[in-house]
C-alpha cells in the first residue's frame, strides 16, 4: 500500500519532467474508473453477485452532480454528497428485489437497470440535455496551477487517487473482517452461510449499496473533471468494461483489480489499442473466464 501511494505521489512530477504532463489527465480518468472497479470487485469477487449495470450508478453520480450545480447553482461539494446519497438510495431500492435473483436472472436484471438509466438519460431531454448531453459543469474546488500542469489536473489527480487509496483501505478492512468472512461464505454457499447465522440478504444489499456509492462518487468526480457529460459515456459497454477489469484482476483480488484497472486504463486512454479497444476488452473477458474455469476445475480435482 505504502509503495503504491509512493508511486502515485511521484507519478505527476516525473511525467512533467519527461515533458508528458498531459498524461496526468489519463491517470485522473484511470483513478476515477478504479474507484468503480474497487466497488465492483467487492460485489462480484467477494459477494459473488454479478452486475452488468454499474454504469447506471456511475451515471447517477455524474448527472445528479452536473444537474444540481448547473441548474440549481448548488456548490459542487454539496452536489457530490447529494449525488452519492441519491445513488445509495436508488441502489437500496433496486437492490432489495434484484439481489433475490441469481445467475442469469440477476445478470439480466442489472443489465436492464443500466439500460433503463441509459434510456432516461436520452429521453429526459429537458433535465439531462438528451443524447447530446450538457456542459459547463464547475470543478469541485477552484482550479489552481501547480507544476505548470493544465488547470485542474493536479487537483483532480490528488482527489481521485486519494479516494482510490481510501477505498482500497476500506475494502481490505471489510474483506479481512468478520463481514469479509461472511461474504466469502455467501459466495461459497448461501444456504450454509444462512445456517451459520449470516443475514445473507442484508449483507448482499450492504455490499451492493457500497459499490453503488463508490460508482456514484466516481461519476460525480468524472462530471466535475470533464465538465461535459453525455449518455454515450454511460452505455452498456461502459458497464462491461468495469466487469472486464474485475475479471482480469482475478475477481476476489483487490490489488489485482486495482492493477488491472490501472494498466488497462492507461493503455486504453493512451490509445495503445487504437480503435480495437472494445475488441480487446471482449477478448480479455472471454480469456479471463476461460482461465478461471480452467483453474477452478484443477482445484476441484
Amino acid at each position, binding site marked *: 500500500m505504502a509503495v503504491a501511494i509512493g508511486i502515485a505521489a511521484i507519478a505527476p512530477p516525473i511525467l512533467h519532467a519527461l515533458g508528458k504532463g498531459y498524461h496526468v489527465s489519463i491517470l485522473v480518468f484511470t483513478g476515477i474508473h478504479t474507484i468503480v472497479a474497487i466497488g465492483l470487485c467487492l460485489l*462480484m469477487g467477494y459477494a*459473488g453477485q*454479478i452486475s*452488468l449495470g454499474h454504469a447506471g450508478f456511475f451515471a447517477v453520480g455524474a448527472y445528479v452532480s452536473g444537474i444540481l450545480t448547473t441548474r440549481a447553482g448548488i456548490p459542487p461539494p454539496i452536489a457530490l454528497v447529494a449525488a452519492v446519497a441519491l445513488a445509495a438510495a436508488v441502489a437500496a431500492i433496486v437492490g432489495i*428485489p*434484484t439481489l*433475490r*435473483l*441469481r*445467475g*442469469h*436472472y440477476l*445478470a*439480466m*436484471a442489472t*443489465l*436492464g*437497470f443500466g*439500460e*433503463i438509466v441509459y*434510456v*432516461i438519460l*436520452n*429521453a*429526459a*431531454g429537458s433535465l439531462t440535455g438528451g443524447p447530446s448531453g450538457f456542459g459547463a459543469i464547475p470543478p469541485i474546488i477552484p482550479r489552481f496551477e501547480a507544476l505548470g500542469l493544465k488547470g485542474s489536473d493536479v487537483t483532480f489527480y490528488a482527489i481521485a487517487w486519494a479516494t482510490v487509496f481510501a477505498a482500497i483501505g476500506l475494502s481490505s478492512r471489510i474483506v479481512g473482517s468478520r463481514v469479509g468472512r461472511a461474504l466469502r461464505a455467501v459466495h461459497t454457499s448461501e444456504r450454509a452461510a444462512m445456517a451459520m447465522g449470516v443475514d445473507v440478504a442484508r449483507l448482499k444489499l450492504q455490499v451492493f449499496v457500497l459499490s453503488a456509492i463508490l460508482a456514484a462518487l466516481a461519476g460525480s468526480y468524472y462530471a466535475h473533471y470533464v465538465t461535459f457529460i453525455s449518455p454515450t459515456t454511460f452505455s*452498456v*459497454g461502459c458497464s*462491461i468494461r468495469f*466487469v*472486464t477489469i474485475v*475479471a482480469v484482476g482475478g475477481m476476489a483480488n483487490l490489488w489485482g483489480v486495482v492493477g488491472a484497472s490501472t494498466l488497462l486504463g492507461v493503455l486504453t486512454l493512451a490509445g495503445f489499442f487504437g480503435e*480495437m479497444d*472494445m*475488441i480487446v*476488452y*471482449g*477478448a*480479455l*473477458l*472471454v480469456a*479471463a*473466464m*476461460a482461465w*478461471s*474455469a*480452467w483453474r*477452478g*476445475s484443477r482445484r*476441484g480435482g
Partner: protein
Amino acid sequence: MSGFSQLLQFALTGVTVGSIYALVAIGFNAIYNATGIINFAQGQFVVLGGMLAVTLSVSSRLPVLAAAIIVIAAVAAIGGLIEFGFIRRLRRPNVLQLIMVTVGLQILLEEAAMAIWGTDPAPPMPHFSGDSPIRMAGATILPQTVWILGTLAVVVAALAAFFRWTTIGKAVRACAANPTAARLAGIPLRRMVCLSFILSAAIGALGGIAITPMVGMEFDRGPSLALKGFGAAVVGGLGSFPGAVAGGMAIGVLESLAAGYIASGYKDAVALAVLLAVLFVRPSGLFGGAAAGLKEF
C-alpha cells in the same frame, strides 16, 4: 383517426415488434433448454442476419430467398463455432463464468460487425412483397408484417414438430431433462449442445432477415434486442416456446401503447420495467407453470 382505430393501430404495431422479441426469445430458449445457458450474444445473431442479408440482397443483388439461405447457413455456422470454439473449451464452468463468456462474445461479434459494416445504419432493404399498406378496420399493416408473423408461425411450428417427432429433437430434449441419463443412453451430449447453438443462431438470423426491411439494422442493436427478447422469454416462462410468443406479444404491445399514449422516448424503459417487474414478482413467468415448468418444452 378514431380512438378505436388508433388503438388498433398501436396494437398491430405492437404485435409486429412483439414477433421480433418472440423470435429472439425462442432463440434464447433453444439454447437454454438444451444446456441451461443464457446466451447473452443472442441479439447479435439477429444483427448479423440482418446486416448480412442487406449486403447480399441489396449490394450483391441476390434474390431474397437465395440471400436468406446463405445468411442463415453462415450465421448458423457462427453459432456452431461459438459452441465448438469457446463454450466447449470451458472446463466445468460455473454460471457466472458462462454469463461473462457469452457477454464477451457479444462484444466480439458486435465489434466484428462494426469492423465489417461500419457504424452507420445498414442501407434500406426492400420489403419482400412491396410496401403498399393493407387496410383493416381503419388501421393499416404492411405486407412485411405478415411476413414477420408468418416467419414466427413457421419457426414455432417447425420447432414443435422437430422436438416432438424427430429422433434428434427427442435426443436434445433428453439432454435437457437429464444429461447423465442421456449420455448413458448413448446420446452424444456435446453434439446436441452444439446443435442447439446452431439452431438458435439460425433462428436469430431468420428473425434478422425478416425484420430488417421494416426496422432497419445497425451493428449495435444486439444488447437491446437481447434484453427485450429475454424479457419476452421470462414473461412467457423461460424455456417455453408458446410462452415466448405470448411474452413477446405482451411486451411488444405494451411498448407500442406506451410509445403512443405516453412518450416514445420511454418505450424501451417500459419494456425493461416489465422485465424487471416480472423477474421480481414471478420469475417463473406469467404464462408458464411453477418453477417445475422450467427446462420443459
